[in-house]
């Protein structure tokens, strides 16, 4: 019995000694950061392998420590350190991302009508300068400005991502949408265009006659915020009389739309752009 205990103790002692020896041979710091130098303790001689998510480093070493330069250690995540030589062993260690240095900014859509709630979205992923996703909470500033109007919001990233939804401004134009973290910023342009014509001011009148044709023209067409509706937008004129219906699709040119319709002694003319109706004209008998 005594002999068995003695053998057991010897085995346990040897095991402990082997463990101590192993720990002494490869020492990797557990607080490594991407872009910062790393010192790995070794004993004996052989080859050191560092296998990371996006790179592999292989170095011959003699007893002492192996220095890894900051610019060599770029990938954050799970690394494997292994040595082959006087002893063979491996160990897992983690590298954290460095400070914010890059942003991935998705701004949608690229073209949007003015004065609409929650139509613009900005999504930002925060990275360090070596393209590692920073998972620690980081404040991200969003700034949307067009003309004199400006919208600013700060959002703290969660698990690497920060996002906002914003209304479009009442003024048309190229809005600068900027996401920034510290000194790093990324800008996108969101083109804010006039919304549909405003029903209150969407009016036409008879502009003249040319032979047996009546010329009708709209007043300058604007949305309800006063922005001119872009040239090229289609405006439909419909004339109805006893002979039937005449339709003309005209594009807005220099702010107004114009159409020539067959002359009639008693007709009704309507005007529309998309779902918006303008005024109605009666030509011929009375107006």
């Amino acid at each position: 019995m005594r002999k068995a205990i003695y053998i057991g103790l010897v085995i346990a002692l040897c095991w402990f000694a082997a463990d101590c020896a192993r720990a002494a041979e490869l020492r990797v710091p557990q607080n490594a950061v991407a872009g910062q130098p790393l010192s790995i303790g070794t004993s004996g001689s052989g080859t050191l392998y560092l296998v990371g998510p996006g790179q592999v480093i292989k170095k011959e070493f003699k007893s002492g420590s192996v220095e890894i330069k900051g610019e060599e250690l770029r990938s954050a995540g799970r690394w494997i350190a292994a040595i082959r030589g006087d002893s063979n062993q491996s160990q897992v260690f983690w590298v954290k991302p460095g400070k914010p240095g890059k942003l991935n900014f998705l701004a949608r859509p690229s073209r949007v009508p003015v004065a609409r709630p929650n139509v613009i979205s900005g999504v930002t992923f925060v990275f360090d300068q070596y393209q590692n996703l920073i998972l620690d909470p980081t404040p991200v500033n969003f700034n949307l400005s067009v003309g004199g109007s400006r919208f600013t919001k700060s959002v703290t990233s969660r698990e690497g991502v920060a996002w906002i939804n914003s209304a479009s401004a009442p003024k048309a134009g190229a809005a600068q949408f900027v996401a920034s973290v510290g000194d790093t910023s990324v800008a996108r342009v969101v083109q804010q265009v006039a919304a549909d014509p405003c029903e209150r001011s969407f009016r036409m009148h008879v502009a003249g006659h040319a032979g047996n044709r009546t010329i009708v023209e709209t007043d300058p067409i604007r949305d309800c915020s006063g922005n001119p509706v872009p040239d090229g937008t289609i405006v439909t004129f419909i004339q109805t009389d006893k002979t039937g219906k005449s339709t003309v699709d005209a594009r807005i040119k220099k702010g107004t739309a114009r159409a020539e319709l067959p002359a009639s002694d008693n007709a009704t003319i309507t005007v529309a752009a998309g779902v918006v109706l303008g005024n109605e004209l009666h030509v011929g008998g009375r107006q």
Partner: protein
Amino acid sequence: MKLARILILSAGVALAISGAVPLLERIFADTKPAMQLNVKNAQPREVEDVTQNAIVRDYTLAWQAISTSLANNTLQPLNENFAGFALDKFTQRVKDQKQNGLTTRIIDHGHKVDAIFYSPDGAAIELKDTASIETQVLDGSTVIHSGQAQIHYYAVMTGAEDRWKVRVLESTAQ
């Protein structure tokens, strides 16, 4: 005499099993890894059924591509399933492996994936993945590291021309 026969037979069976298990593992390593996707916690947009299926299909393919590329030091599978920063990193890893004569065998035992962010416009999705992975790093034919672990990954996927591609794949200690 009978006992000796049984013992020899048992030893033979044990030997056969010990040889067959790694062989089977290697065969199954090339098949698709098991993938469970939970989209209940996705914010701010709900993940559509069609998108769920596409994410499972394409994230599975991405992991298959990692296994193939790191085992054979080939870039083609990566190009088909990765984009952006993730593609840059894995491409560099394959180039470094090739230069240093290394290969990595991955035996993928499956992934439990949570969709945690789905962008308002539906263009990007962020996944949190708990992967059960067995890894062997070889220098030539010599194994320099072997281990099995549960590893947490964050992945960002974005819609590409005909599939979702992985733009970010980062392992984390937490």
